[in-house]
């Protein structure tokens, strides 16, 4: 037998640790997209006093290395403070797995990104963002890059669904290039709101559709 992965990767692939989701998570994130063939969702429980990650769960749509890195990243992060967990690199994840084929390294990046995004989500929700960066049009667009366009399976910025973005006095306005009665209009709208409402200086979000 000559499998394309080493034994550690295969072990995590076969028996991934910390699988599933957490009800009412303290922090959560979803990175990747079906178009790329890779997605990771990550859920956190954080002790508010110690800031230690007490529970962490993930879900994966993707290839073996995607599943294995999701599994290892949860193992690496569990029991660490959010500050420590933020510093985990894709190299550490890949090393902990005994190395990944170079063509698959992007999968370990995805897992690390989802961990950082989940921690950031926690920090935003709990007012822990210390450097309060002002929300600009650029910040909004960056956030919207994590909202999927289900028509294409790619994010809504790349697929040109975002027609206009403006931010003024904490009021965000977004124009989406879709008819309002489109099959996916509501799903996209609520997904976009969820990605933006946690920003510290955002007071109001208005989303309209072009038709």
């Amino acid at each position: 037998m000559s499998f394309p992965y080493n034994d550690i990767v295969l072990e995590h692939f076969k028996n991934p640790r910390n699988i599933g989701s957490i009800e009412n998570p303290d922090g959560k994130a979803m990175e990747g997209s079906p178009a790329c063939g890779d997605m990771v969702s990550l859920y956190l429980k954080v002790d508010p006093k110690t800031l230690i990650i007490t529970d962490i769960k993930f879900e994966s749509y993707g290839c073996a290395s995607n599943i294995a890195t999701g599994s290892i990243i949860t193992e690496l992060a569990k029991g660490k403070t959010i500050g420590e967990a933020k510093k985990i690199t894709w190299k550490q994840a890949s090393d902990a797995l005994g190395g990944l084929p170079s063509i698959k390294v992007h999968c370990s990046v995805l897992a690390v990104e989802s961990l950082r995004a989940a921690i950031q989500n926690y920090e935003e929700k709990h007012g822990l963002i210390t450097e309060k960066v002002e929300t600009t049009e650029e910040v909004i667009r960056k956030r919207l890059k994590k909202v999927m366009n289900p028509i294409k399976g790619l994010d809504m910025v790349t697929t040109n669904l975002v027609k206009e973005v403006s931010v003024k006095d904490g009021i965000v306005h977004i124009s989406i290039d879709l008819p309002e009665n489109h099959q996916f209009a509501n799903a996209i709208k609520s997904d976009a709101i969820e990605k933006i409402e946690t920003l510290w200086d955002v007071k109001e979000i208005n989303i309209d559709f072009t038709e």
Partner: protein
Amino acid sequence: MDKNIYMDNAAATRLDEKVMEAMKPFFFENYSIATSEFGYSMGIDAKNALDEARTFLAKSLGAENTEFIFTSGSAESSNLALKGVAKALGSKKGKHIIISKIEDFPVLYSAKTLEKEGFKIDYIDVDEFGFVNIEELENLITEETILVSIQHANQEIGTLQDIQKIGNLCWKKHTIFHTDATHSFTRVPLDVKDIPADLITVSAHTIHGPKGIGGLYIRKGTPIAKIMDGGFQEFNLRGGMDNIPGAVGFAKAVELVNDEENKRLQAMSNKIVEMIVAKIPEVTINGDKIKRLPQNTNISFHFVEGESITLHLDMYDIAVSTGSACFSRSLEASHVIAAIGGDHERAHGSIRFSLGRYNTMEEVEYVVETLADIIKKLRIISPLGKEKEV
């Protein structure tokens, strides 16, 4: 199961022992090249063996033996068909070629190479089942069109094109018609007395013959220039050492396929579909239900990714292939599933089961049972297809 279960016969097949036996003398006893009829006796014997194989294969297509040349396989055959016609007619008749969007790589990339050299290529659409839009084809053919290349059967989803209708249309418009029959040859009737094709790509590797031998049917009078220089082999259309053991093995492989076997393959394919539909929810069957190869099944399993499926199956010694980007050399998802209107997720989760002589009904049952467990497991860990917001 205590042995490998191989269901990737569209990619390559196990050699049949009878083919090996037929080839053997041409490795150890009669190993000379085919000489002219004025050569030495060993060479004349070799030439006779080559001619016999050629005649047999030509006949299996309803053709004359001067209309069939040997190549190194289907990739070379299709390269010769496209580039050879382009070379013969490009400066005489025109520079326009039409192919379908779901052609296999040899046709697709030969066309792309010609495109870089100044030919105009139209890539014709297919519908959700993989059928070429014949009306669009009719509108696209002009006086400048030198070649239409549309496959007989699709390599991934198994859809069979109406090549009789397509060929008739090409002939009516005085355009040469090539069809890649790599996956349909011997599995589906194909006779050049009925089918108006000028060029047909065939290969031994899909029918338990040896790798490295294929053929190109070239209808008498078809303008085509050689692209491989060498001696004067293959009616001076393809230079290079005659692959006599390969040719003999190819003929034997064709001889060994019969209707009964094709019916058996069809029954097993039907069983795969029937069992999967019964056992696994949220699947899409790719390709047409009726006009399809008897040995091919292609199914998309939603919310899961193909490489994860194939790796799990591999751990049970089961070999199948997927249209997922992770599995392909180019990291691109299947262009076939995309062309039939499937989204990325449908391509990533597609699995092709291609059967051959050595598969059994027992294997089919075991594979589907195993697969049902794997899909269940992967869906548990997938964030897709769940009624919740992330």
